[in-house]
Each structure stands twice: as C-alpha cells, then as structure tokens.
C-alpha cells in the first residue's frame, strides 16, 4: 500500500477522533452545552413525528399478536386493575379530609405541597433508549411547560427528574439511574439520607444514614425538600427492603426499592411544574 494512502487514512481517523472529542467537550461543558442541546432539540423536533408515525403503524400489528398470545393473562390483569382502582377510589375519599387539612397547614407555613402544584400529564414514548442509562422519553416538552429540573411522578411515587427538554419531548432520568441522587427522609423525620440509583437495576441504596439509626424494613422514604433540594417535600421515593450495620462502617448499608413501579414500562407520568428555589 502506498505510504501517501496510509498517511491520509491515519489523518482522516485522527481528524474524526479530534472532532468527536471536541463535540463531547462542548456537550459536557456547562457554558457551551446549550449549543449541543439546541442541535438535539431541532433534531428531536424533526425526528419525533417520524418515529411517532412509525409507532402508530407498527403498534396495532404488535398489539394484535401480543393480545392474541396473552389474552388470558391480560384479562386477569384487567380484573386485578379494576379491583385496585376501586380500592384506591375508596382510599381517596377517606383521605380527602386529611389532604384538605394538610393543604391548609402547608399553605399557612408557605410550604410547597405536591397536590397543590400544577402538573403536566405526559405519555412515555420510549424507555431506556440506551442500554447504558435509565431514562424515559415523554411526549411533552417546553411547548407544554416541561423544563429541565422538574420532578416526575408516576405509578405510586417519584419516577425521576427532567434532564433534557425539547419543544415536543423531554428526557427523564429515572431514580434508579446511576447518576440519580435524591435527598429523603422518613415520615417521622428520624431517618434522613440520600437515595442513590444503581444503574438499570431495580434496587437502589440509601446512603448517609449514621449507624444505629432506627430503620425498619418496609419503611417508606419521602423527598425531604430541604434547602436547595431538587424536589418538593413529601413525594414517596423508595421503600426499605434490607439493611445491616457493618462493624466500623461510618454508615448503615441500606437497600431500597423504588416506590414507582419501574420494573415494567411506564405508560403515563406527571411532570410537576416545580423548580427548586436557588
């Protein structure tokens, strides 16, 4: 092979590698991130309708085969869901009075209360688009008032946080993603710590809990809403599934499971239009 061709080939690869590294640097730099974010936003605005159209065509075909194969289990699941809806309606009625009282109290104390905050309901269009992150893409974006940093609740608890927002869509980082950190507290305020995601795994860890803190299996942890917290207080985040104290350790080893059911694909989520106070 002639030397000139080999040199040109090497030069091409070097140029491409340098170009890639430059783009990554621009993306990861806080001051220049808006450039790549803008490009992604434009691309998503063009690509989302195209993907939506393909999904609209393919979904009925897939649903037909899935439905015919799993008819029996779907019917059973539907019956169970109907029973759950009935039970939740009864609980909601019972809790109506308590909620009203709580709303009045929090209003008096000028505290944000989840049920008093506006929400945007969005449909999840795809989950975990990469094998390396735990995210979900929703079909509402800046055009519907969804912005970066807004908490997302779904299926019984905190689902995650909006990390990218485009005109017609947004990307939500789920609580079990390895980059996710949520400040939490127990209902009685005795246990406080940070729930850390552990990748796409269903379990997470509750960190920064000092040894000999009285923790209980099954105890639910809520967002603490402390100063500069990314979340309003009182959203159920996770439930303690196991804990133990390692001799000499500076913190308890606590395993928690997300309250929101992330083991199955999310269908609809509520984006809470709340932003942390600086």
């Amino acid at each position, binding site marked *: 092979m002639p030397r000139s061709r080999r040199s040109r*080939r090497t030069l091409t690869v070097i140029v491409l590698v340098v170009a890639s590294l*430059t783009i990554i640097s621009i993306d990861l730099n806080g001051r220049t991130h808006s450039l790549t974010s803008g490009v992604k936003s434009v691309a998503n605005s063009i690509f989302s309708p195209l993907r939506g159209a393909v999904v609209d065509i393919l979904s009925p075909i897939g649903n037909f085969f899935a439905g015919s194969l799993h008819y029996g289990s779907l019917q059973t699941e539907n019956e169970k869901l109907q029973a759950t809806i009935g039970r939740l309606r009864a609980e909601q009625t019972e809790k109506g009075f308590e909620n009203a009282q709580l709303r009045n109290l929090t209003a008096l104390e000028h505290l944000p209360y989840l049920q008093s905050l506006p929400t945007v309901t969005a449909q999840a269009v795809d989950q975990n688009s990469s*094998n390396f992150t735990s995210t979900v893409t929703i079909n509402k974006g800046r055009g519907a008032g969804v912005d970066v940093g807004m908490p997302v609740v779904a299926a019984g608890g905190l689902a995650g946080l909006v990390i990218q927002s485009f005109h017609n869509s947004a990307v939500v980082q789920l609580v079990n993603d390895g980059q996710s950190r949520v400040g939490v507290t127990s209902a009685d305020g005795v246990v406080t710590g940070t729930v850390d995601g552990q990748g796409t795994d269903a379990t997470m860890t509750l960190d920064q809990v000092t040894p000999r803190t009285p923790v209980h299996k099954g105890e639910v942890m809520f967002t603490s809403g402390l100063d500069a917290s990314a979340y309003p207080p009182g959203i159920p985040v996770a439930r303690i599934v196991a804990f133990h104290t390692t001799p000499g350790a500076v913190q308890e080893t606590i395993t928690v499971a997300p309250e929101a059911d992330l083991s199955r694909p999310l269908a609809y989520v509520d984006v809470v239009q709340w932003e942390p106070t600086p």
Partner: protein
Amino acid sequence: MSGRVLLRLALVTLVLLVIQSTLMLSIRIRGVHPDLLWLVPITAAILDGPETGAIAGFWSGLAFDLILPTPFGLSALVGCILGYAVGSATKAVDREATWLMPVAAVIGSVAADMLFAVLGGIFGQRQMVQIDFVAVVAVVAVSSALLVIPVNWAMRWALFPDGTSRSLVSAHGTRSRPW
C-alpha cells in the same frame, strides 16, 4: 465519496435510526435491547476498508447521538474507532468468507459497547459502568450476529450504487476488491 453514496448512506442511517428507536426498543431481554448502531461501521469497514468504516462510524454515531441521552459525540467517537479497527483487523482476511460478517459483528459490537461504557465512565457518566454487562454482551452479541445480514445488504446498496467493485475512498495503487 460521491454525492449519491452520501445520500444513500444518510438514508440507510435514517432508516436504521427509526428501526432502532421503534422496533429494537420493543425487543427487550433482561432489560437490554439490540443495538444496530455498531453494525454500520463494521459492515462499511469490511465492505470498503478502514477509512470508509471510520467515516461511516463517525457520521452514523453522530446521528444516533441526537436521540441518545448519553454525551453528544460519544457514539461518533466509538463508531469511528470501531470502523477503523475492524477495517484494519480484517485487511488480511478473505472478505468473501461467509463467517466474516457475523464474527466481526459479534466481536466488534461487544468491544464497542465495552469501549462506550468505559469512555462514558471516564467522561463522568458513572451510571454507564453500572449496568448488567453479562446481559448486554449476550443480547448484543446474538442480535448483532443476526442483524448484520440485512444491514450488510443495506450498506452494500449504499456504498456501491452501480453494483461496481470500485472502492469509494480513492484507492490509487490498491487492487480492486472482489465485490
């Protein structure tokens, strides 16, 4: 590369992008889905050499980066390294051998996923190394071995619009390739 080839490559990348974000995301085994992205530089490198592999890997990676939540440019970086590596490693191999595409697809896709995760970790995305690697390797390896066949057809159509055997990256002094 001619304008016609670039247009066809862009079209193939767009179609693969749509298939990846719709059909492939619905196929999940232990939470892992097949990945079409790495097959573009692998097939391009085997069909037309390391330089074409690197170029195809860079541009297809950049296109996939537009819809991925991972750092923008990371897929482009891994794609171009993968294309160059596959093209260089298969230079001495009979490229008409039937086993070459599936074997290159399995080894290349798994290596690319590992590199992608490690580089992501280096760039501060620690969640990228906290995944179930066994599941990712198994699903990506098996699916790549199967999916490389249709991707190879598509890439052959894109890279050789006249059905000729000429290399599209000017190759003065190199012997013509058998395809």
